[in-house]
């Protein structure tokens, strides 16, 4: 059974001239995520989307561990885990030979795998359902923003609806309207970066095939010589195949079903034999770019996701980066609207997410340069690395088929309390980094450290409960009522915490401060710093 996209109810329009605290433009993956996060923090949100359904095709497809943890905080983690295809292993082939394979999560004791493959439309549908159920998100489908005017007092919008054009004003506008952002273009904001002179064909193919749930990447395979191919498994027997075509390919010609079928047929004949039947679900030809806005905050307008930054698909950094934007902004905007943080906290969205975008752009650019060499020298180095990698382990580090999305550690953020003289062990999260997950037991019930963190700030105390400060969540080496029993010691070791340590955690589950001992004044000062107060 194929996926049947929902048609969301189009309701009579909002009052003409009404003012709203928060308007989200774009009801896609990122817009719906930030709307749901705000709603769960008690903030009412209006979402405007020009369509009345979810996106077509698999699109973002690879949801990284950190993104799954964010969706779990929003109540959708288990659903994604159950429906999605979980994977940790990637294989790289040169020609028909496997060069090497890697395991992105080689240790047990994690709630979520390195990645879950899931068509973006499922995530969008579930987010829209959760938004509607929250009672605080007003979803307005078939509402297309046609004009935007920005002042210190607010953001005025003209919105075309099936019931006529209306005017709305927002205290805060969250632009989540994608790579071709109307808001960004209306404001004339430069979107600067690099266009890659290459074309890729993406096909979602329905078939029953025995490939394992792994990421397979071929350089120069016999069934598609001279180019690269990427294969991912998705739920519902849908397979995502990306064929590199080269710059000279004609996008219209390459989208023709017969031509796509011939490419898929050649691949299946080579890999599994001529008996495997298949059907095309979605086909697209794209050229990609790596670029971003100079700033993501423009007064009362904040840009998230592809509207703010764009990357190539190799590394799964587009959708994951966008969800992490939402995760970073929602608690800050909620804190400001609740009156517990100054407007300056919103500037930290820029300060934290621009380096994150740059990191994503850097990795995605390097992967693209490796996959599509721009000069004979680049080509020679790439082929040299591939040949060496088959024989020498050291050379595998040079092979880049996409450096897969990792959570951003927000190094140097002004919201973080500097570690000072207290040195954390290698691998432990420095202030700014997300808290690593670990299995714990609460009153005898197995659960996860991240599931036990509050929606606001959490003070985590490591050690026996009798020494814990009031109000702290206790991670204890011994079982006791109400504590998180760290039976296997993984919570403490992954956090780099010894007995007596106190870790202040932000509402987005990133570490704000890590103290070797409890000090109420230092803790309060760290909390104020994390709120830019």
């Amino acid at each position, binding site marked *: 059974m194929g996926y049947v996209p929902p048609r969301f109810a189009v309701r009579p329009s909002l009052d003409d001239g009404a003012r709203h605290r928060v308007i989200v433009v774009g009801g896609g993956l990122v817009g719906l995520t930030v709307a749901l996060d705000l709603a769960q923090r008690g903030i009412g949100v209006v979402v405007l989307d020009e369509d009345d359904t979810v996106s077509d095709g698999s699109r973002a497809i690879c949801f990284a561990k950190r993104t799954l943890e964010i969706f779990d905080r929003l109540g959708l983690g288990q659903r994604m885990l159950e429906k999605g295809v979980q994977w940790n292993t990637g294989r790289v082939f040169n020609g028909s030979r496997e060069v090497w394979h890697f395991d992105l999560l080689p240790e047990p004791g994690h709630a979520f795998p390195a990645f879950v493959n899931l068509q973006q439309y499922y995530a969008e549908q579930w987010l829209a359902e959760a938004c509607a159920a929250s009672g605080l998100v007003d979803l307005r489908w078939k509402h297309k923003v046609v004009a935007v005017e920005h002042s210190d007092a607010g953001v005025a919008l003209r919105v075309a609806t099936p019931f006529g054009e209306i005017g709305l004003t927002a205290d805060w506008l969250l632009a989540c309207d994608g790579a071709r952002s109307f808001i960004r273009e209306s404001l004339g904001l430069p979107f600067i970066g690099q266009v890659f002179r290459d074309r890729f064909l993406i096909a979602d193919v329905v078939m029953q095939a025995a490939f394992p749930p792994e990421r397979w990447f071929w350089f120069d395979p016999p069934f598609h010589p001279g180019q690269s191919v990427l294969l991912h498994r998705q739920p519902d027997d849908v397979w995502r195949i990306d064929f590199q075509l080269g710059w000279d390919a004609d996008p219209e010609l390459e989208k023709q079903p017969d031509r796509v079928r011939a490419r898929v047929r050649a691949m299946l004949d080579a890999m599994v034999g001529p008996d495997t039947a298949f059907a095309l679900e979605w086909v697209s030809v794209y050229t990609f770019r790596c670029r971003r806005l100079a700033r993501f905050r423009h007064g009362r307008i904040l840009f998230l996701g592809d509207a703010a930054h764009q990357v190539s698909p190799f590394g799964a950094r587009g959708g994951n980066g966008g969800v992490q934007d939402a995760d970073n902004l929602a608690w800050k905007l909620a804190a400001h609207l609740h009156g517990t943080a100054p407007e300056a906290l919103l500037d930290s969205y820029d300060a934290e997410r621009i380096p994150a975008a740059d990191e994503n752009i850097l990795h995605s650019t390097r992967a693209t340069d490796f996959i599509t060499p721009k000069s*004979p*020298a680049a*080509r*020679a*180095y790439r*082929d*040299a*690395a591939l*040949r*060496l990698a088959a024989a*020498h382990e*050291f*050379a595998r580090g*040079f092979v880049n088929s996409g450096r897969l999305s990792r959570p951003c550690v927000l190094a140097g953020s002004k919201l973080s309390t500097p570690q000072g003289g207290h040195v954390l062990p290698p691998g432990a999260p420095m202030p700014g980094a997300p808290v690593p997950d670990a299995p714990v037991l609460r009153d005898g019930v197995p659960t996860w450290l991240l599931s036990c963190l509050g929606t606001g700030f959490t003070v985590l105390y490591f050690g026996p409960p009798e020494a814990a400060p009031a109000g702290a969540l206790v991670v204890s080496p011994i079982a006791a009522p109400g504590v998180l029993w760290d039976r296997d010691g993984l919570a403490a070791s992954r956090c780099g915490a010894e007995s007596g340590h106190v870790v202040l955690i932000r509402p987005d589950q990133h570490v704000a401060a890590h103290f070797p001992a409890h000090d109420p004044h230092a803790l309060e000062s760290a909390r104020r710093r994390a709120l830019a107060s």
Partner: protein
Amino acid sequence: MSGLDDPDAVFAALVAAHADLDDASSRRLDAMLVLLLAHEVGDTARVMAAIAEARRLN
């Protein structure tokens, strides 16, 4: 100062390794050599310095 006791032999071997290779193969061979030797050096700063020096003199 070079630590190689027979630079003539090394030079001759590098040139000889390219015998009968077309341009693309020759280039790839050099690239493999560079990557192997970078690994042998095992120090990012020294490799970067060598790249900068070669670029300066080229």
